[in-house]
Every structure is written in structure tokens, then in C-alpha cells.
């Protein structure tokens, strides 16, 4: 029996605001336990929430970037459940009236562009952190830290339009890139700043009716998402094939063992007893706020890639790599303007990213040493064929560590570029004289030996000859001299 998987995702994005959503405590990674807390986020008796406009602003930016409908009036609600990391044993979230509805994210999957629709995006507060049980003398205890309690989260719910783990992985990758691009979150899954739950069900191909769904929680890496979903699809498929029913369950994915474990869950169905938060007014978002948020959005990655295709004829692959991060895209654009965009793209994609990887540099680290103008000047020399390939790579490496323009660097390293016929002709003629065999082979029709001869000239020049010029000279010499190979006077 062939099954089709129907998958929906619920993603939580931790916002990079300075302070929490309902109080002024700093949002900080790695602070000592319970050092960024106050009566509000500790849920002390008598404390009240005070909403942070930066949280709403971030939600607006994401909603606008994804083409959502923004609600002019949205409402906070209380969602009740008991857990040690919940300071009030209710979470302030949005229920009936979320900030954003609809929208979609276009994602490249298996070399096609696919659009995945969203249901909604809303604002809520994060919980504290509770830790697994540990031994403590003769008993076992758990620790709780409320530094994270109250940090703003955006919850993004997709339509159940995914069919496998790869699509989900691609979606998350695109979402991560987007939240970083618009500057609302660093999307770091390892730090838990981007989390994902997946709802998975199977149905026979062609069937309209949805199967029973299970929920996989707390996936914290792209690979984890892909693998966990694949594992769950396989598990459900096997059960259905064996004639067994799927039970509604919540599952945790163990990345190390690549297995799913059923979490213990309460018998009673979830009754969160939502009601509108009486301590907070409705969130009013007028046209002027929306306009300001929209104006503050940078050119989005897909729009940029499309523009590059039009303005620079840049291939989709290049745009994909360069639009990985906004600062990289900005850097590329600054270099490409007024020059050869494809050349810039090649050098950035290969050499620059390589150096950055080797040295664990960010784009900012690179750019502080090689600002766009400097790279552009270098590229201009390359385009004018003034820097042969291997030498160009060397100079590129020098630029990362030393100041100075190309001429200055060459001089400092005692390198001279040989690009004129006057410099190179003696070398060419010397090589042709030294290798009569290959010369005859070439003249006999084996054109491949040209490469060998050019290579020999390059070697003789210590890599300082411009290869295109060498090639032209070798060709013309081979064409022009007589069978005896003697040099012209």
C-alpha cells in the first residue's frame, strides 16, 4: 500500500530583543542562573505584564516579509498548564486573535521553487528552563532557571502541506535564513533560538481523509528534523501495513540513537482553558506602524536574487550561495557594482568563503580587512588579465593579512607580473627550443600538447606570466616558425 505523508510544522523563533516580552529583564545567553529575572517574569504575587513594542515590531516584520494579513487589533490570551518552568502556570500567548494570518514561504527543494502556505504567526512568551533529574545526596532533584522565562517568541504554524523530511528541512533552512536576514533572531537551532515541532500523519495515496497524527517535539537541528520525520513516516507505514492503528502520541527524537521515543502523556486531553488576558490591552497596529515596519525591512533574499538575475545575469546557484546571509549579499553587491558581477561572485564563493572557513571569520571580520572597494580593485586587475590565476590566488591571500593595493603587495613580496610580449617571448622561444618533441607533435596535429608547452613557460616564469598571453605567444610562435624550429632573427 502506498502512503502519502501529510506534515505540518509549528516553529518557535526566539527573538533577539534586548529585553523580555513583558518586563525589562535583559535577554542574554549563558548568564548565571536566575540573574535576569524580576517580579514579573518570576511570577511573583502582584506582578503584572508590560508589553515590549520591539516584540510586536519583530512579528510585523516577519509577517510582512511572508505576505501575511496583519490584524489591526490582536489579543493576548492565557494558556494554562502546570510545569515547573512556568512562572505563572499559564503562558501569555495569542489565541483567538493572532497578529498575523495567512502568508507563505517560497523554498527551493530539489531544484524547484515550492511555496508552502502558513496559517498564522503569533507572539508569546518563552518558559524558563528546567533540567533533567540529578542525584543530590540521597535523593533526586531537578533545577529550574527562569532567565529564559518571558523572552519573546514568535510561533509560526504552517498548513499541513509537507510530504517528507527533506521538504521540512528545506523550509526550516529558508526560515532560518529569513529571520537572520531581517534581523529579528539569530535562528540558532543549537541554542534553541529556532525550534520546531512536526505533526505527522499518513494516508493512502489518493485518499482525502487525514490519518491520525502524532507530534514530534523539540527538534533542534535541520538533520534531526529530516531524520525524525523520515523515521516517523517509516514507523507509521510499518504499523499500517501490519494492520495496526496509529495512536495519537507525542514523540521525542533522540538524535544520537536516531530513534523516536513516546513521551509519557497525561490521560486527559489538553484543556488549556484559554481566555483573553485581562491584564493587557488589545494590540493595536495601525497603518503607520505597518508602513514603518515595511520600510525598515531590507530587500528580501528572493527579491535580491531576482534582481541580480535581471541586473547582473547572475545564475540562480550563485544567488543562492551569496544570499545565504545578508551581510554576504551586501558585500557581494558592493563589489559587483560597476564591475564584473560573475567574476566577483566566483571569487567570493570560492576563495573568500574558503579563507573565512579556514580562519573562522565572519563576513564582518573579512570585510574589516578587505572592504568591498579593495576587493573590487583586485578584481579589476584580474579582469584586465593583469594577474595570472595562481598568482591572483596568492595576492588574494596576502590581502587578507596585509594592507596595501595589488601593486604594493606584489612589490612587497618581490613578485613581478609578466604580461607583455617583450617579457615573455624569450621564455616562450626558450621552451620551444628545449622541447622539440612536443613541438613536432603539436605541428603534427596533437593540439593537446599546447597545454604542456604553455605549462612549461608558466613554470619557467615562476608563475608570474599571464597564461592567456603565454598561450597566444606560443600559438603564434608555433604557427610562424619553420619546420626546423629555429628562432626567427
Amino acid at each position: 500500500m502506498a502512503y502519502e505523508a501529510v506534515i505540518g510544522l509549528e516553529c518557535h523563533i526566539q527573538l533577539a530583543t534586548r529585553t523580555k516580552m513583558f518586563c525589562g529583564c535583559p535577554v542574554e545567553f549563558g548568564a548565571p542562573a536566575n540573574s535576569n529575572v524580576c517580579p514579573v517574569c518570576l511570577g511573583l504575587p502582584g506582578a503584572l505584564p508590560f508589553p515590549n513594542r520591539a516584540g510586536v515590531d519583530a512579528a510585523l516584520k516577519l509577517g510582512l516579509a511572508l505576505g501575511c494579513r496583519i490584524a489591526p487589533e490582536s489579543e493576548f490570551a492565557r494558556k494554562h498548564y502546570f510545569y515547573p518552568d512556568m512562572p505563572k502556570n499559564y503562558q501569555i500567548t495569542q489565541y483567538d486573535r493572532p497578529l498575523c494570518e495567512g502568508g507563505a514561504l517560497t523554498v527551493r527543494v530539489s531544484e524547484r521553487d515550492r511555496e508552502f502556505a502558513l496559517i498564522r504567526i503569533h507572539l508569546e512568551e518563552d518558559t524558563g528552563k528546567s533540567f533533567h533529574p540529578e542525584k543530590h545526596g540521597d535523593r533526586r532533584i531537578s533545577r529550574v532557571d527562569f532567565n529564559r522565562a518571558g523572552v519573546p517568541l514568535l510561533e509560526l504554524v504552517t498548513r499541513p502541506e509537507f510530504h517528507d523530511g527533506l521538504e521540512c528541512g528545506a523550509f526550516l533552512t529558508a526560515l532560518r535564513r529569513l529571520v537572520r536576514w531581517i534581523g529579528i533572531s539569530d535562528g540558532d537551532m543549537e541554542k534553541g533560538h529556532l525550534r520546531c515541532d512536526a505533526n505527522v500523519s499518513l494516508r493512502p495515496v489518493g485518499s482525502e481523509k487525514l490519518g491520525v497524527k502524532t507530534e514530534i517535539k523539540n527538534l533542534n537541528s535541520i538533520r534531526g528534523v529530516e531524520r525524525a520525520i523520515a523515521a516517523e513516516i517509516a514507523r507509521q507505514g510499518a504499523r499500517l501495513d501490519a494492520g495496526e492503528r496509529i495512536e495519537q502520541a507525542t514523540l521525542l527524537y533522540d538524535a544520537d540513537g536516531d530513534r523516536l521515543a513516546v513521551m509519557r502523556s497525561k490521560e486527559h486531553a489538553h484543556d488549556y482553558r484559554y481566555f483573553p488576558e485581562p491584564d493587557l490591552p488589545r494590540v493595536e497596529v495601525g497603518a503607520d506602524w505597518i508602513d514603518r515596519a515595511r520600510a525598515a525591512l531590507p530587500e528580501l533574499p528572493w527579491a535580491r536574487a531576482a534582481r541580480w538575475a535581471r541586473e547582473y545575469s547572475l545564475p540562480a546557484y550563485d544567488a543562492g550561495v551569496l544570499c545565504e546571509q545578508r551581510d554576504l549579499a551586501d558585500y557581494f553587491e558592493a563589489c559587483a557594482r560597476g564591475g564584473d558581477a560573475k567574476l566577483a561572485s566566483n571569487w567570493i564563493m570560492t576563495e573568500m568563503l574558503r579563507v573565512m572557513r579556514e580562519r573562522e571569520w565572519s563576513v564582518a571580520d573579512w570585510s574589516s580587512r578587505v572592504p568591498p572597494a579593495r576587493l573590487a580593485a583586485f578584481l579589476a586587475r584580474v579582469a584586465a588579465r593583469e594577474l595570472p590565476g595562481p598568482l591572483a590566488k596568492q595576492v588574494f591571500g596576502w590581502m587578507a593579512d596585509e594592507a596595501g593595493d595589488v601593486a604594493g603587495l606584489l612589490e612587497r613580496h618581490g613578485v613581478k607580473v609578466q604580461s607583455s610580449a617583450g617579457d615573455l617571448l624569450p621564455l616562450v622561444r626558450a621552451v620551444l627550443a628545449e622541447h622539440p618533441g612536443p613541438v613536432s607533435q603539436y605541428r603534427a596535429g596533437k593540439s593537446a600538447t599546447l597545454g604542456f608547452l604553455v605549462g612549461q613557460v608558466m613554470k619557467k616564469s615562476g608563475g608570474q606570466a599571464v597564461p592567456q598571453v603565454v598561450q597566444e605567444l606560443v600559438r603564434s610562435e608555433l604557427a610562424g616558425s619553420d619546420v626546423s624550429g629555429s628562432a626567427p632573427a
Partner: protein
Amino acid sequence: MSISREDLERIAELARLEIPAERAESLGRELSAVLTFAEALRRLDLAGLEPSVFAPAGAPMREDEPDGRQLDPARATAAAPESEDGYFIVPPIVDVLEP
């Protein structure tokens, strides 16, 4: 309106309260009496009325700045029944999520 025994148990679990067996019946009756009384609302004409909202609309939100109310770990955990090294200590949490 009468509360059934099952409803009472379900509600008590949601509220994390234990109802001693000897209290269950009288408590059920007390709650039922109040709920029956609340049925009076059915007689009111509520057509077209929205639920009341009291928090003033359009109130300005907070700027994204610290507001001076932060506590240090010692003060934050000062009232805790059990704490250590700035953490709150609770019985072991086995992965039971949600209600």
C-alpha cells in the same frame, strides 16, 4: 446544572487540587448550587453584545530597555522553599508535559 463526579475529578486535576472523598459529594452540591444560580444569565437578552474589555485600548507599549526591576539570584531565590547556587530546586521532573 449539576456537576458529575467525573467532571469534579477532571476539574480538580486541572486545578491540581485533591478533593478528599468525604468532601466530594457536598462540594459537588455546593458547586452545582452556584452553577444553577448562574443559569439566571440565560434569561438576560445578550443579543449582539461583545464580551467586556477593561484594559484601555491604545495604551503605549514599553520601549525595549531595562526598567530597573531586575533582581539578583540571591533575592530572586530568597523566598524559595528550596534553592541552591541561584537555582530553584524541585522534585525530579520526569518528562511529563502539559495538562
